[in-house]
Each structure stands twice: as C-alpha cells, then as structure tokens.
C-alpha cells in the first residue's frame, strides 16, 4: 500500500517535471541539431548554430543592448523601490495600507497594457522609440516588485535594530549605511537579480518601445517570423541559460539567508 503510494507519487512527479521542463529541454536539445530542421531525428550534438548566432552582428548587438537595459533599469528600479519601502516603513501616513496596495497593484497588470500606455505617453511627449524608452518601461514594471520584496523585510525587528543603533549614538546616515543597507542586502540583491531577469526576458514592452536598436527577445521574435530553425533554438537557449544562472544565484542567496 505504502509502496504503491510511493510509485504513484514518483510517476506523478515525473509527469509534472516533464510537463514543466519538456519545452525548454526540447528547445535546448534541438539547438544542438547539426541539420537545418529542429525535428527528430536528433542529428547533433553540434555547436554550428551557436556559431551562427555569434557571427550574426544583429544578434550580438541585441545581446549587449539587452544586458545594458537589464542592468541600468534594474539598478534604477531597486533604488527607487528601496527609498519607497524605507519611506513606508518609517512614516505612518494616512491611508498607507491603501497606498501600499496601490504600489503593488501593477504586478498583476498586463505588460501589453503597460506598454500601450507608455506608447501613448511617449507619443504625446515626443520621446522617440528607443532603448531608453524600453528601459523606462522596465523600471515601471520592476519597481513594484522591488518595493514589495524590500518592504517585506522591514518588519518590527528591523525597526528595533535601527532604534538600537540610534540609541548607541548613530546618526541617520550611519543607521542607513551601517545597519539598514547591510541587513537588507539579501533582499536588495534578490530584487536586483529578479528585476534583471525579468528585464532580460521581457518582450512586449521592448517590442512596442524600440525601433532600430533593440533587445534580444525582440530579435528572436524577428527571427521566428521566418519559422522555427535551430538558430532560433540556439539563441533561445542562450537567453534561457542566462535566466537559469540568475535564478540559481537568486535561490542560493535566499537559501543562505535562512540561518541568519
């Protein structure tokens, strides 16, 4: 009975993991195909298509664009999110529960809608479609997330720790620099990584707000128009690999926090 239960659990687990991971596994496997069509039989492994990606100047410049947008927009989003969270935790404002709700509300709004809204505004104020516009879009989508993560770590205990620092003669600047920031460091780092990942992966807003220079997901989209081929799989696998590394780093940070 117990054995049967275990067997059943194992089959279920296998099915679920297969279900979730099959898409990316297939993508990665067929990016190593040596022939021109990403359909069985598997003819690889070959790095031919990765070389093709690396030799495509549009793709390599898009890769650098993506990295630049991800890093800059994330730093801005984290900085703004930290200041907001700090403000909320320090000052009891009238209606602050509602305000807190409002600031995290955009987390559930479609990127497509946010992108459209930004497009309308940028049209109005005359900001051209470019990477800066896309970066602003990424700040808009990531700021609420950064706020939520950092704010969640600012509990009563954190406030007492800051009181203790002040009690021992620390100025506000000392408190921020020697106590608040170092303690919130894991949360800040986590939100930075998560923002970078989301920005790196983001397609719709980048598509709507850029024109000539663009990000990697948009270039992949352009490639996809000519149908699936091992080159799209290869560049997709690269994007995936970066995301996975970021996600693993993130989980390690969160795991390391536990004992503290």
């Amino acid at each position, binding site marked *: 009975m117990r054995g049967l239960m275990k067997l059943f659990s194992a089959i279920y687990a296998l099915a679920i993991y297969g279900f979730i991971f099959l898409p990316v596994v297939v993508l990665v496997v067929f990016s190593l195909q040596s022939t021109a069509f990403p359909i069985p039989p598997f003819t690889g492994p070959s790095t031919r298509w990765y070389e093709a990606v690396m030799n495509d100047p549009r793709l390599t410049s898009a890769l650098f664009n993506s990295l630049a947008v991800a890093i800059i927009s994330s730093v801005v989003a984290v900085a703004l999110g930290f200041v907001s969270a700090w403000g909320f935790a320090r000052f009891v404002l009238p209606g602050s529960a509602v305000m807190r709700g409002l600031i995290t509300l955009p987390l559930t709004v479609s990127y497509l809608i946010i992108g459209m809204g930004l497009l309308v505004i940028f049209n109005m104020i005359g900001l051209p479609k470019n990477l800066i516009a896309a970066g602003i879009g990424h700040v808009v989508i990531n700021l609420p997330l950064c706020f939520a993560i950092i704010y969640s770590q600012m509990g009563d205990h954190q406030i007492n720790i800051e009181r*203790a620092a002040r009690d*021992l003669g620390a100025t506000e600047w000392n408190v921020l620099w020697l106590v608040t920031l170092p*303690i919130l460091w894991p949360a800040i780092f986590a939100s930075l990584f998560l923002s970078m990942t989301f920005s790196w992966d983001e397609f719709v807003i980048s598509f709507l707000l850029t024109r000539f220079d663009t990000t990697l997901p948009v270039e992949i989209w352009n490639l996809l128009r000519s149908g699936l081929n091992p080159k799209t799989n290869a560049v997709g696998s690269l994007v995936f690999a970066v995301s996975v590394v970021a996600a693993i780093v993130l989980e390690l940070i969160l795991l390391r926090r536990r004992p503290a």
Partner: protein
Amino acid sequence: MTEALVEMKNISHSFGRAGVLHDVSLTINPGSYTVLLGPSGSGKTTLLSILGGFLVPRKGSVLIRGHNCTMMPPAKRPTTTVFQDYALFPHMSVGNNVGFGLRMKGVVKSERDRLAHEALVIVGLPEAFKKKPHQLSGGQRQRVALARALVVKPAVLLLDEPLGALDLKLRRQMQDELKIIQKQVGTAFVHVTHDQEEAMALADHCVVMNQGRIEDEGTPERVYAKPATRFSATFMGESTIIPGEVTSVTSTAISVNTVFGSFPIIATAEEGAKVTLAIRPEHMRLIRDSRSITFGSAEVTAVVFQGSFKRVVAASKTLSGPTFIAKIPATHEVAVGDTVTPCCHIENLIMLTK
C-alpha cells in the same frame, strides 16, 4: 543623601485618547537597581521609552544628572537600552556589535576591540567575540545586548523585559547574573518586568505600577512586608484579603471590624474608614496555637505540592468570607475537602487603606 541621578517629574502621556501615564514622578539614585513591575497595560514600558528618549511625554520633564533631557533624542542621551528582542546587528560579529557605540563616538578600532572584549568578559562571553549573533543561544544574545549597552558607560542602563524571551530556568539564572553584573559595574539599571519573582530578586528599588500610576515603591522587602495598596499586596506576592471597617481609635492602636470579629491593630486611621486586612500565605496557618487569631472555618479546595512547601487554597464557610491562601510545610498532611481553621498571629495582619 546622594543627589538623584534621574528625576522624572509629573509625566503624563497618552496614545490617541487613551491615557497611559497619569502624573507619574520617579527618582532614580546612582548605582541603584530599579525595577518597574506591573501587568501589561500598566504603563511601565511607556515610562521606560520616555526615559530612553523614544517617546516625548505629553506633560512633565525628564532630568538626567540635573540636565533637562525631555526633548533630547536617544542618540544624545546618556542612556542605553537593552531591547526585549535583543536587536543585535545580525550582519556584524559579536565584537563589532559590542563596539558599535564606541565606533559612533569615534573610538579607534584597536581601542574599541579592547573595550568590547572587556565588556564581553564582564558578561561572561569573551569567547564569542568573533561569532555572529545567529550562532548564539537566546541567553548568550541577551548577554551580548547587555555588553553592547554597557560598553559606552551610560549613566542609566534601561532593560525592557530583558528576560521575557528566555525559558524559566535560564531566566532565573540570567536574573542572578544581571544582579551580579550591575553591582560589579555600578551603573544604575532600570528594568521593566511583569514577573514579581524577578522584581523581588533584582530590585534595590521596586516600583509597582498599575493603570498608568505608581501604586507603591520602595525596597522589595518593604513593599512585600508592608504593601501600600491592595493591588501591590496581590500583585507582588499573593495575599488573603479580608475587608473591614475601623470601629475604634486610640492613640496607639485601632480596632478593625470584619466578618470574623474585631482585631486590634497598631496603626492610625479614622473611625469608620473602610480598610482591608491582608495576610501573606507564609503567615497563614491551618493549626492554631496560643497566639493565633482565627478566621472561622474553611474547606480546602486545592492542595498543590511545591517541593519545599504545600500551597493550600481554602474557601471560607462564613458568608461573604474570603478565599484563604496558605503556604504550609510539605510534611503537614492536608487534603482537598478537609475542614481547617485558618489563623495567623496578630502581628502578621497587614492593614491597607487603599
């Protein structure tokens, strides 16, 4: 008489509309161990926060060493606080935690490491210098918090229910150590607690608070032996409470009439005044001797063995009589349902006018 170290004068405070402190005045002497004892909501923690500078009182003033500090922020006051949750800096080593206050004063690294080490020796934890707070047990964190607050040599050290998070055994042990450390460093300690055993064990000066007012203050021995009010007679140790009325007054004694008859007491009071007689459980006896005064008869409702003694609760058989609480030797045989004769010696009757 030594000059007062701290004078809190006519402090009143409220949160929203609820008054939490009503015209409280308190004097703290140098080198003393003051304990603020009271149930939750009695205002003891608010009073400590006002002394520490975390709250500005609505009315009244706080003088430390004669300087008016009422509006001064915590950073500038000669006070440090040991928080109930310790509030250690989790990212710093124990040594850097303890040295933090010195760092804020601009003391150089080598000197503050030396002083931090000294402070850790005082609290008995020199080997923890390089550890991180999360590697320590609750009792050890408590000691680090104490060392961190002591190292800056405050005029007054404030402790906010410092043993509240520890289990009973560790609590009693840390309590003994706190007292020893205080005597050793000579700093004035002000300690907030709701645990009366802790208060009796630690205090030089015990302040019993209730509903935003000081009910009684003095040495724990005095407060225990001669409580000023009915509240302190029942909160600081238990008592059997017998209400009465003053019937006759002479120059040296009065007579108090109760449901158990009249008792002569050496005290002064006005005739007709409503008073309360209190008897401590260790003075309440169940076997009379020649010097006893008796309180009718009572039925034993509970007998609790406590090792060195038995705690006996008995309900009076007299109409509107009290519940008697007695601590008797463990060898004394008594069982639930027995009828006993509660009695005590006349000198152990405590008269309360409030």
